[in-house]
């Protein structure tokens, strides 16, 4: 971006300046022996064009909405429309979650994001013995279409977009959503939303897997294929680095492991006979916004550039949409402290700002009480208002990629890209993401342990935890999920099961079994089954019988 003469001149000036810096540092020594980002990149005192000597503007940056999308996926980004403000919510019964959804929509939220309880996420009905104590705890319990109908009562599914954090049984929940929308009078082409559907990261770090990798990858490819034809505006997967980061990875690992997972899904779909440009435009991503503000901004930019190159160069994608990485962001749950919980509001605000400066398409801001419980109404409202402040009051949305061209941000973006490509190379050498699950787990665990040691030995400051502590009273007004939710849900499910036409249920489950045993796409049989109130647990039970279950390797 600069001529050799210009660079030489700047380098010479910096050499003179370095002597002044040394003199200053004698009087005012640096606070740290080494300054480094969370990914371990050493940070220099100041950055200049010399740090970007190798950089080519057209090749590496370009303009927003243009390859390699470093500066964003939209030419006008937030000048056109702000990101979707999407608070992840769900707890207790479908009735309670329906009320929370409607409260959030009334407060100005622009999309829904549904949390399911763990039995639902692992494909067990509420009456399963392993569901004990877990019903409605971390999300809403959905056993059948009946619960889905209650969940979206008076919410027109053709007019809102809904993100569902559901992975192993994503196809079944999508089938219920389609059935529910059709009952409300909408067509499949009218519904918008996302299923997380990212099973590889469940094996790596989130834990809600059901089936072994091979049938899981087939189910995912089935969904890609079905939606490319029938549900064209549905985001068929949200390839998630969020949980990888929450589990302890660095920013560079977050990019690398997420995109390595993405590569595995693209390869599986191509192997299943799909054309890359038919499904790749509907791939979406999900990242974490952590505390290291500037590195996080660079991370989002680097992720976009790496993915664009991978799709173009490795998979020969032709459509712009196949190459542009669209992503949701959530602020870092792991950065929240149980101590002085109100201070979390500030942490979340900075994290959210990094996501916006990094060009996110949608955003969830965490609530201040989430190191202790699910958020209460008040804390959720403050979290949403944090997004409103960023979007409407502080002026950062009036220009696209405002930090593009910053010597430091561009240097970090380059460094993150290089490090991420190194990791992707290692994962390729191991045979791809599915084969590299334990490698990634080890890397994540080591980073998590180092992070905790840095806090314990005070190399890393956590306000209220290892510095600026104070005596405080326990926080009041935490949300409590009533244990009776479980009993109520089980009773409702038993009644519903008893009232169904049992012969019809058996025939539909047999159809699921036969489709699973053949090469057929499973989505149509899922939809037929859920329409007749065949339950999630029943369908997943059949899949478990046909395919077996994943056995976790223990790595630490």
């Amino acid at each position, binding site marked *: 971006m600069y001529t050799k003469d210009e660079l030489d001149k700047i380098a010479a000036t910096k050499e003179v300046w370095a002597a002044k810096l040394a003199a200053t540092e004698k009087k005012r020594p640096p606070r740290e022996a080494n300054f480094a980002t969370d990914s371990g990149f050493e940070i220099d005192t100041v950055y200049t064009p010399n740090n970007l000597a190798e950089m080519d503007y057209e090749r590496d940056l370009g303009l927003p909405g243009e390859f390699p999308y470093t500066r964003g996926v939209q030419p006008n980004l937030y000048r056109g429309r702000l990101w979707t403000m999407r608070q992840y919510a769900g707890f207790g019964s479908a009735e309670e979650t329906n009320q929370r959804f409607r409260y959030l929509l009334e407060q100005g939220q622009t999309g829904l994001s549904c949390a399911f309880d*763990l039995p639902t996420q692992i494909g067990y009905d509420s009456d399963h013995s*392993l569901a004990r104590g*877990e019903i409605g*705890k*971390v999300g809403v319990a959905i056993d059948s279409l009946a619960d889905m109908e209650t969940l979206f009562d008076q919410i027109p599914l053709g007019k809102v977009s809904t993100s569902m954090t559901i992975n192993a049984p994503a196809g079944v929940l999508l089938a219920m959503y389609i059935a529910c929308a059709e009952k409300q009078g909408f067509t499949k082409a009218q519904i918008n939303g996302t299923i997380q559907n990212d099973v590889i990261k469940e094996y790596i*770090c989130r834990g809600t897997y059901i089936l072994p990798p091979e049938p899981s990858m087939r189910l995912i490819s089935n969904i890609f294929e079905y939606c490319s034809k029938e549900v064209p505006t549905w985001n068929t997967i949200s390839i998630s680095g969020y949980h990888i980061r929450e589990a302890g990875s660095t920013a560079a690992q977050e990019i690398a492991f997420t995109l390595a997972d993405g590569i595995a899904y693209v390869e599986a779909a191509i192997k299943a006979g799909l054309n890359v440009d038919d499904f790749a435009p509907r791939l979406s991503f999900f990242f974490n916004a952590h505390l290291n503000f500037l590195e996080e901004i660079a991370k989002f930019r680097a992720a976009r550039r790496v993915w664009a190159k991978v799709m173009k160069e490795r998979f020969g994608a032709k459509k712009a949409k196949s190459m542009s990485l669209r992503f949701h962001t959530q602020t870092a749950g792991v950065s929240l402290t149980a101590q002085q919980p109100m201070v979390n509001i500030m942490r979340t605000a900075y994290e959210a700002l990094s996501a916006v400066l990094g060009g996110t398409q949608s955003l969830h801001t965490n609530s201040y009480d989430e*190191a*202790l419980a699910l958020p209460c109404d008040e804390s959720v409202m403050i979290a949403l208002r944090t997004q409103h402040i960023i979007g409407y009051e502080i002026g950062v949305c009036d220009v696209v990629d405002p930090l593009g061209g910053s010597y430091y941000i561009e240097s970090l973006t380059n460094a993150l890209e290089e490090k991420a490509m190194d990791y992707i190379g290692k994962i390729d050498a191991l045979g791809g993401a599915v084969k590299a699950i334990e490698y990634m787990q080890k890397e994540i*665990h080591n980073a998590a342990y180092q992070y905790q040691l840095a806090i314990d030995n005070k190399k890393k400051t956590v306000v209220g935890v290892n510095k600026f502590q104070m005596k405080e009273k326990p926080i009041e007004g935490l949300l409590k999920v009533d244990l009776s939710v479980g009993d109520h849900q089980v009773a409702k499910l038993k009644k519903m099961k008893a009232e169904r036409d049992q012969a019809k249920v058996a025939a539909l489950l047999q159809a699921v079994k036969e489709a699973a045993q053949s090469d057929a796409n499973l989505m149509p049989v899922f939809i037929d089954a859920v329409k007749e109130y065949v339950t999630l647990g029943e369908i997943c039970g059949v899949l478990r019988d046909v395919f077996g279950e994943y056995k976790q390797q223990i790595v*630490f």
Partner: protein
Amino acid sequence: MSEKRIRVLVAKPGLDGHDRGAKVIAQALRDAGMEVVYTGLRQTPEQIVSAALQEDVNVVGMSILSGAHGTLFPEVVNLLREKGAGDILVIGGGIIPEEDIPPLKEAGVAEVFGPGTPLANVVKYIQEHV
């Protein structure tokens, strides 16, 4: 307990998949010289108790972030007592509101370590209570 190394079972009861904390604690206890067995995810109380007996541990440390602690921690304590292993020290951690701690202690959970606990505190607690 001066000669023999302390044996700890780190366990994840219930369906919760968050095991960053469990594994970091397990590593810290191992680095402090203890023998540590980690169960992996999705363990029923029965499985945890059977592993504790089989591995002949002094301590069972459980982590739950899903909110199921009120149901599952006491079940483990009761099962251990039923099997005549009530002397095993049971401790827990995770996303646990302060007001839930007294009932857990009453049920026989010796100590609950919340978010922000330094690793050294857990190590020291175990060394002092085994």
